């Protein structure tokens, strides 16, 4: 019952001379929502394509719903590719019905679902227009509907929110979370770490074709073993140059400080006040995903990782 929805073991994939994915093992529990994070070119899209068996891995095994990907499993997946292609000359509702039908939904049922989805995404009046008349953002929403129309058990979304305004991002995010509450498992890739931090229970970070860490966000944040401080101040940043501070990341309005093991936050505060800095905010915090990511990826050579588990 508790077997993972996705299980990758030792996946390798090369394209000509470049390594796209290297020794990737990864499990996604049923009902979870997981962000696949990594910089551009890290191998996120290739990983998703391998899960869908659009490209075959050079080595390793892929299991979805407990078995190798076959047609039955694909019918239970909703996939939103990063490159969003549509039949430009088809009418919106028919376009949706076509893709729903390919996923085994009866045509009449697919059509009525398409219309109610369009209604919900504020495209109800465009149902009978040609796709080519829609703006890019509208097309992206239509494509998103095509991904969820057949009520898939697994949603695989490649950069689902890129290029959308905040209102539409919220709209789609609500739908994703709603699907998850209904029991679907969600895996989506993004290079916007803040996106993932807001909605994910789990993350999997890859960089330079390798997995850097994965697990539930709580575990990931605890795994560092470091205490983090969030400090907002006015004045001379000299107090940050201290042996008890491992790194200080400037987020603009505030600084995220990673303390050395065993260091006391109070000494940092005392030193800051001694140097005459005015403190607006001083709190013990969990490390942000960005901080963890930078620690794991940004501060070492891109391909130099040894793939250790977090």
């Amino acid at each position, binding site marked *: 019952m508790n077997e993972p929805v996705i299980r990758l073991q030792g996946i390798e994939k090369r394209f000509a001379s470049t390594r796209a994915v290297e020794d990737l093992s990864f499990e996604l529990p049923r009902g979870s929502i997981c962000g696949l994070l990594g910089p551009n070119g890290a191998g996120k899209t290739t990983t998703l394509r391998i899960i869908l068996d*659009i490209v075959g891995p050079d080595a390793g095994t892929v299991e979805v719903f407990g078995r190798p990907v076959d047609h039955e499993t694909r019918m239970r997946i909703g*996939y939103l*590719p990063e490159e969003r*292609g549509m*039949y*430009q000359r*088809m009418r919106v509702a028919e376009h949706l019905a076509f893709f729903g039908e*390919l996923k085994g939904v009866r045509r009449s049922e697919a059509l009525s679902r398409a219309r109610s989805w369009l209604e919900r995404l504020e495209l109800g009046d465009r149902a009978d227009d040609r796709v080519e008349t829609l703006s890019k953002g509208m097309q992206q929403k239509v494509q998103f509907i095509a991904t969820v129309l057949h009520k898939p058990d697994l949603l695989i979304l490649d950069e689902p929110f890129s290029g959308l305004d905040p209102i539409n991002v919220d709209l789609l995010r609500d739908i994703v979370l709603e699907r998850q509450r209904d029991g679907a498992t969600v895996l989506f890739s993004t290079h916007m770490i803040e996106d993932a931090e807001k909605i994910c229970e789990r993350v999997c970070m890859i960089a330079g074709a390798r997995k850097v860490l994965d697990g539930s966000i709580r575990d990931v944040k605890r795994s560092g073993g470091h205490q983090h401080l969030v400090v907002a101040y006015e004045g001379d940043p000299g107090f940050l140059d201290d042996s008890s501070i491992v790194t200080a990341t400037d987020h603009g309005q505030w600084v995220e400080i990673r303390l050395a093991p065993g260091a006391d936050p109070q000494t940092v505060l005392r030193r800051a006040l001694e140097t005459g800095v005015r403190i607006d905010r001083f709190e013990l915090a969990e490390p942000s995903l960005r901080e963890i990511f930078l620690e794991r990826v940004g501060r070492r050579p891109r391909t130099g990782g040894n793939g250790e588990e977090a």
Partner: protein
Amino acid sequence: MRGGGPLNQRVTTVARREFLARVRSRWFLFSTLVVPVLFLGAMILPAVLVDRSIDDPKPVFVIDNAGNDIADRLIEALRANEIPAEFLVDRVGPTAGDLLDVESLRGRIAAGEELADAEKPAAWLYLPANLIEEGTAILVEDRDTGPVLRRRISSTLQEVVTSVRLERAGVGAVTIEEVLRPTSVSVEPLSAEDGPAGLRQALGFVFAMALYVMFIVYGQMIARGVLEEKTSDIVEILISSVRPWEMMLGKILGIGAVGLTQVAIWGVVITVAAAFGLAGAAPALAQLGLDISGAAVPWDLILWSIVYFITGYLLYSGVFAAAGALVTSEQDVQQVLIPALMPIILPILVLPAAMQTPDATWVVAMSLFPFFSPILMPMRIAASHVPLWQSALAVVLLLSATLALAWAAGRIYRVGILMKGKRPNLPELVRWLRHG
């Protein structure tokens, strides 16, 4: 409905989309309506034009150095020989002894000399003094008189000269008429239902050309459809729902259904047009040597043509689908299509020669070969009596080749549709086929 059979729900869904997307397009409406009009026009127009060209008066003046009243007799015979009255044939001279050769005639015309007092002549028929002995006259044309008039003049002159020669030999006028009575060979088919042989042969040519055009049009439609899905990245979503072979088969069946629909509409339009209008065109067609009176509908030819359209389409469609999957841009399509089109173009190149000898060994061999049979076999069925085993064998060979090709095309398609960038070279293609 989740079965994996060759006609499962996904294949029919893809096929229906392909069908509807095209049948609803403006292109379909246009080509379906315009082609029959052009087709009928192409058949009738030349005949009408030939008719018109005879009606158009083109004065020809006869310059007679031969004597013996040959010019008078020629003009009289021409007028008796269905040359329309407006058509002027008249005689100049023999005015003077200086009109001896064509060169001086040319010189005098060039100098602007009025050799005839009527309107400007289109041509001068020069009858030399030794016409009866040598049998050679010269038609000096200023304007084109056309093949029909030339043939009339030539054959009428032949008659006149022959009768003069017979008179010289002392044959009586009555006997001459007897000798000159025309002889002709009337060609008739063995079985009466076949209708006039000339018409069947012409139909065979028309059918072969129509099949050729349809294969090219629908083949390119497949290639472009595949390319469209590639360049617009639709393929990425399709592939997450549909197996590549299901995509390919659905596309081929959908576009094929468009073709059959179009043929059916054309069939109805042409039948209706024939019932109402073609009878009126019969005299014009007769001018071209086509006697359509008493022609029966060549059902065997039509049925075989449909069989070869379907089987030939299935064979070529795999080639075109693979070609579309191989390229990544519209410009590349043409390059890949040229080799794909070769097996379709070749039978058209040999078609005129093959029509003359439809049962020659090389024609029979070519008409059995899978890539050529869809075009050559209908032509042979029209032009000759093809044994049933041959037309059936051609279909069997076609279907076997289709299966083999579908296998290869499916593999190329599977790899090709997700490929971007550079077109694969031949060794890479072979690798796709072996590991695809």
